[in-house]
């Protein structure tokens, strides 16, 4: 059997070569990379591979176990459908960005030590920034800058944490870290920024809607899920994660309900779903950790499908806001069907979400965490209401916007169809396809019990009923073109404020110094050394000239003569000697005392 190659290597090489190819050849090559990645995935044996020595550190580029393999698997699936989805336009930047992003994510989850992880962690940011730039609008360019600033900050926090951790005697092993001391806390926070925790995660809903149509599929998959993976590796069972997760599950939904841009609604729901995973990590039980891995796998599927469906709407109509869309089922029936499958995949029986997320909810219930359980139920209802009902309804049904366009292009439909089929397969055959990939095989879970299925159907139908009744009663908030303030305000308004503050204060000091020192003091000193001598001489000579009874004209002429001679250093010997004698006389007087 041939040896497996590091997955990241295949993708990064692909990303480097793509820009040099042209036309159909480029399309075939770009699509071949994930296919090769897929074949390569099945060649990877469990264990530790590809060790490289760097200085005194041993870098481990491949640690293949349950955790890393399930994440690498779903990343490979998404890289294939993502590339297929953007294949039609055949833009080198988009294709390269997708491959680079996917390769970096795989490098990060396969990393066996913290140094390798950090390297790929930073590469992820590069991939995301390219996906934002690929939109090629002024506002996406600005969003890319904001994304870069936030993630460079996050990277510095992580690096500082790693350095302190190593300096305090910690190892570079990418395993469970005790959350005590400044270093581990900084590492924790660095991971949390990428995981889109409350406040520090505002970059996600700020920038994701600015990404290119295809780039968003990669963005929605790699950064946050890699962060979930590293948290599950390094801080499993950390109680504070439980409450961070609950906040992530609950808070973004209130924004999703009033948000107009449907891609941003999905972004808020993405944070909500990642919150479930963080709760699973915080619980730290075998079932909840398995649930985190399973939910990450399933979530990536349906979130990619939903982003693709709305992406196709944006691709065809140029619009993604609820106020501008509606009634598109007439123009894009197949895309609408896939969007509905994506919606059902969030948590309906027979689809992926049902067999993943329910493990985490069951783990909270079986662990006796009643409050967390209720928060997760609230989050599950809200997520289905927003991503599962609001998004398809406002885009494809509801008020007819009058937009008429073509159905999504074939490659996009194929990509969506692939994900829809995978979601159905995973949902119907979890014991064959999903559960054998989970990190801990010692625990068994059965999602399809009569009680669970009927409860879940009633749960989802009730969400639908609530939505319809609220619409009929006029209770559901009208979609309004507006900006909703979030924590991104801190850097979008706070950043410029600090800039202006620095501008006003530091530049004022600068100006005052320029005025006072350069404008007055320096010319004064120059003037003193230039004309101080002759002025002194004139001061001494004026009484003598008066005794000599010189006329005012003669006095002026004498003064001019002193100044001219001082400038040229050309006093007559007599005067110089006269002053020298006076000076010597004064000195000899001084010597007597």
């Amino acid at each position, binding site marked *: 059997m041939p040896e497996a190659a590091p997955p990241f290597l295949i993708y990064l090489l692909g990303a480097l070569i793509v820009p040099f190819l042209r036309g159909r050849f480029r399309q075939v090559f770009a699509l071949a990379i994930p296919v090769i990645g897929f074949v390569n995935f099945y060649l990877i044996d469990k264990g530790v591979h590809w060790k490289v020595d760097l200085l005194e550190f041993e870098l481990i580029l491949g640690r293949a176990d349950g955790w890393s393999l399930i994440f690498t698997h779903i990343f490979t699936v998404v890289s294939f459908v993502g590339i297929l989805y953007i294949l039609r336009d055949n833009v080198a930047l988009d294709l390269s960005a997708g491959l680079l992003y996917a390769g970096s994510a795989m490098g990060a989850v396969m990393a066996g030590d913290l140094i390798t992880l950090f390297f790929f962690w930073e590469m992820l940011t590069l991939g995301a920034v390219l996906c934002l730039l690929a939109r090629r609008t002024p506002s996406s360019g600005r969003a890319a800058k904001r994304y870069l600033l936030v993630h460079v900050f996050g990277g510095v926090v992580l690096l500082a944490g790693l350095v302190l951790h190593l300096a305090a005697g910690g190892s570079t092993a990418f395993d469970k870290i005790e959350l005590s001391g400044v270093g581990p806390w900084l590492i924790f926070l660095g991971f949390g920024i990428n995981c889109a925790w409350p406040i520090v995660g505002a970059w996600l809903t700020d920038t994701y809607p600015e990404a290119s149509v295809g780039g968003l599929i990669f963005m929605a998959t790699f950064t946050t899920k890699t962060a979930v993976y590293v948290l599950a590796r390094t801080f499993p069972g950390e109680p504070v994660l439980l409450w961070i997760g609950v906040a992530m599950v609950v808070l973004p939904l209130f924004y999703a309900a009033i948000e107009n841009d449907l891609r941003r609604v999905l972004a808020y729901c993405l944070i909500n779903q990642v919150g479930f995973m963080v709760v699973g990590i915080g619980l730290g039980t075998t079932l909840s950790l398995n649930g985190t891995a399973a939910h990450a796998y399933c979530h990536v599927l349906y979130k990619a499908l939903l982003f693709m469906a709305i992406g196709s709407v944006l691709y065809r109509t140029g619009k993604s*806001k609820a106020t*501008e869309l509606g009634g598109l089922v007439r123009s894009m029936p197949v895309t609408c069907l896939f969007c509905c499958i994506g919606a059902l995949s969030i948590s309906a029986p027979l689809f992926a979400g049902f067999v993943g997320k329910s493990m985490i909810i069951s783990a909270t219930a079986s662990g006796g965490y009643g409050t967390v359980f209720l928060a997760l139920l609230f989050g599950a209802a809200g997520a289905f209401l927003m991503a599962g009902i609001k998004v398809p309804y406002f885009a494809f049904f*509801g008020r007819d916007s009058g937009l008429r366009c073509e159905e999504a292009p074939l490659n996009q439909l194929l990509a969506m169809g692939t994900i829809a089929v995978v979601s159905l397969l995973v949902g119907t055959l979890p014991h064959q396809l999903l559960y054998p990939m989970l990190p801990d095989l010692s625990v068994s879970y059965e999602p399809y019990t009569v009680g669970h299925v009927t409860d879940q159907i*009633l749960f*989802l139908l009730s969400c639908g009923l609530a939505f319809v009744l609220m*619409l009929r009663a006029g209770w559901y*908030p009208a*979609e309004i073109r507006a900006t*909703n303030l979030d924590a991104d305000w801190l850097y979008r308004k706070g950043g410029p404020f600090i800039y202006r503050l620095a501008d006003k204060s530091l530049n004022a000091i600068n100006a005052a110094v320029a005025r006072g020192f350069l404008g007055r003091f320096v010319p004064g000193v120059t003037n003193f050394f230039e004309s101080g001598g002759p002025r002194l001489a004139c001061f001494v000579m004026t009484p003598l000239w008066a005794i000599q009874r010189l006329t005012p004209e003669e006095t002026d002429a004498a003064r001019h003569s002193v100044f001219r001679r001082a400038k040229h250093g050309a006093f007559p010997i007599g005067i110089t000697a006269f002053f020298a004698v006076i000076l010597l006389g004064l000195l000899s007087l001084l010597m007597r005392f």
Partner: protein
Amino acid sequence: MPSPKPSPGGKSAPPAPRKYFKLLVAACGFFLLLDLVFRLTGFDKHPYLKWEQWPGFYGIGAFAACILLVTISRFVVRPLVKRDEDYYEKSSSEPGGKSDA
């Protein structure tokens, strides 16, 4: 063909779907009834928490959660956080959703 008229204020008041409303209500009623039957016959749903055994817990819970979510968003969150669409970028005159096609 229904008349497409986005209102000038950019607001949209979507009409409620009527066709399947009765079907939806009937389905909810059916599963609620089924849950009640489970409870009365003592069918074991393997619950972890005692609430889960209450008939219709998941239905009523989801319904209440949706109403609560929308109500808080509409009457508390929106008045607090809503700003003009060009709040951050006053000069943005580019079309909102230019596709990269």
